[in-house]
């Protein structure tokens, strides 16, 4: 049944190729699929793909770890302190709606061009989904488990490491996965907007030097990268939490 999903995309590619051959398109903005494949092969062969991919992934990963990590950490702290939650509610609600790209000029002034600019902007973008979903994960912990930890006399760190984090981990991982997709989007966006490195920048230079086949080849690689990252994290999620992530109430053979 899975092949049916391929019918339309494959048909579109064949059609595009046929049109390009029959009408002999000469364009500054379009390219035949075969030309795009040749350009993609060229990028792969001369290693330029790995250079730009490395720059983009490094920025995305750096921002994800810093921003996503900070978000999860704050979520954990807020989960433990209702007072701090009330104090920070307003600042969080005020800062969160700022589109992450709008903060770019500020970071440009502080950091200049380069990795630091991009990592800072990705961090800002990853912080929010990580914080919000992280908070939901912490508040979703079964209250009975927290009571169990009190009755057993677990200390503060015992409670965090043995109850809170493992109980929230499946959902914290979801937060991480969503933050990862945001990281890639924002890294490429920053490169397209002004940072002279990575896939986004190469995409723009291909466009402005009137090489549509290279532009589409890079676009193809960006798509494949995003898809691969998400697929890898989904697989990891299933492997790690397939069983332990299941809610304890929803288990068959319960009322035996």
């Amino acid at each position: 049944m899975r092949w049916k999903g391929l019918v339309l995309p494959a048909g579109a590619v064949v059609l595009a190729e046929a049109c390009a051959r029959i009408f002999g398109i000469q364009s500054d903005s379009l390219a035949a699929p075969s030309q795009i494949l040749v350009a993609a092969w060229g990028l792969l062969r001369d290693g330029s793909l790995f250079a730009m991919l490395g720059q983009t992934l490094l920025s995305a990963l750096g921002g994800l770890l810093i921003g996503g990590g900070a978000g999860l950490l704050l979520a954990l702290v807020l989960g433990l302190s209702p007072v701090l939650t009330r104090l920070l509610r307003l600042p969080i609600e005020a800062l969160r709606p700022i589109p992450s790209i709008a903060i770019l000029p500020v970071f440009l002034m502080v950091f200049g061009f380069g990795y630091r600019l991009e990592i800072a902007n990705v961090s800002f973008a990853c912080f929010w989904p990580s914080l919000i979903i992280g908070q939901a994960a912490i508040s979703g912990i079964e209250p009975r488990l927290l009571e169990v930890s009190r009755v057993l006399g677990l200390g503060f760190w015992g409670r965090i490491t043995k109850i809170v984090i493992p109980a929230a981990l499946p959902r914290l991982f979801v937060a991480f996965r969503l933050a990862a997709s945001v990281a890639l989007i924002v890294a490429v966006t920053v490169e397209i907007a002004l940072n002279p490195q990575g896939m986004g920048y190469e995409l723009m230079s291909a466009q402005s030097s009137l090489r549509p086949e290279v532009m589409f080849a890079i676009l193809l690689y960006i798509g494949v990268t995003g898809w691969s990252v998400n697929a890898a994290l989904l697989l990891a999620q299933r492997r790690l939490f397939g069983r332990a992530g299941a809610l304890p109430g929803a288990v068959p053979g319960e009322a035996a």
Partner: protein
Amino acid sequence: MNRQTAGGDVQPAGAGEALVSFRDVSLTLSGRRILEDISFELKEREFVCVVGPSGCGKTTLLRLIAGLMFPTSGAVHYRNQIVRQPASDIALIFQDYSKALLPWRTAAGNVALALEAIGSPKAERPARISALLQKVGLAQYAGHYPSQLSGGMQQRLQIARCLAQDPTVLLMDEPFGALDAMTRQVLQDEILRIADSGGTSVFFVTHDLEEAIYLGDRVLALRPNPGRVAEIFDVRLPRPRDQLVTREAGEFLQLRRALFDFIQETGH
């Protein structure tokens, strides 16, 4: 509050010292009176059951002893000290075993949690864990996760985890309410055996009057709105108890009648 010193082997030797005592305990939660002027004592090696209509504060009594809640006035004492936090040798067994077990730990891992909490030496843990699982009949299931165990087995596992605390007092909140009748009877006998062999005092909340009589040395009957002690029934049935013989004894039937009448009287 007169404890009967009945003949036979109703009370094991050494019973009599008050372990837990409620002294004029009242509790008001957000303007609602939950408990009023509760006074009673749980003695060493004593098995006390608590019955009463829903909403009479049975579970609240238990949470007060566990140090999870605190009275508005009066005081709960444990070993003559006011209860201010959970004590390491008071264990609490929840009714909803599936929520009280850590789903990401195996049976052995769940028992280990209690040992980690009391800081028992790492080298001694494996032996302790298998002894405890053995005690509740889960020796072959050490590597199973709670979701792979039946309800009765999950409740046994929770009991094993509580026994790891080496409790002096075992608090049980309708522990067998969600189990089928056969499993319930088996576990009733097991908890009697465990309490007897460990010299443990048990404070057992239930809505099943027959269960209360079958297990208890005394049955504490509560009246609702606000929760008050209505009456304390002494159970002078000999031990060890037997699911058939004990339940057919004249004393058992009389108590059953008295408790049913009492519950009828208090409404619903």
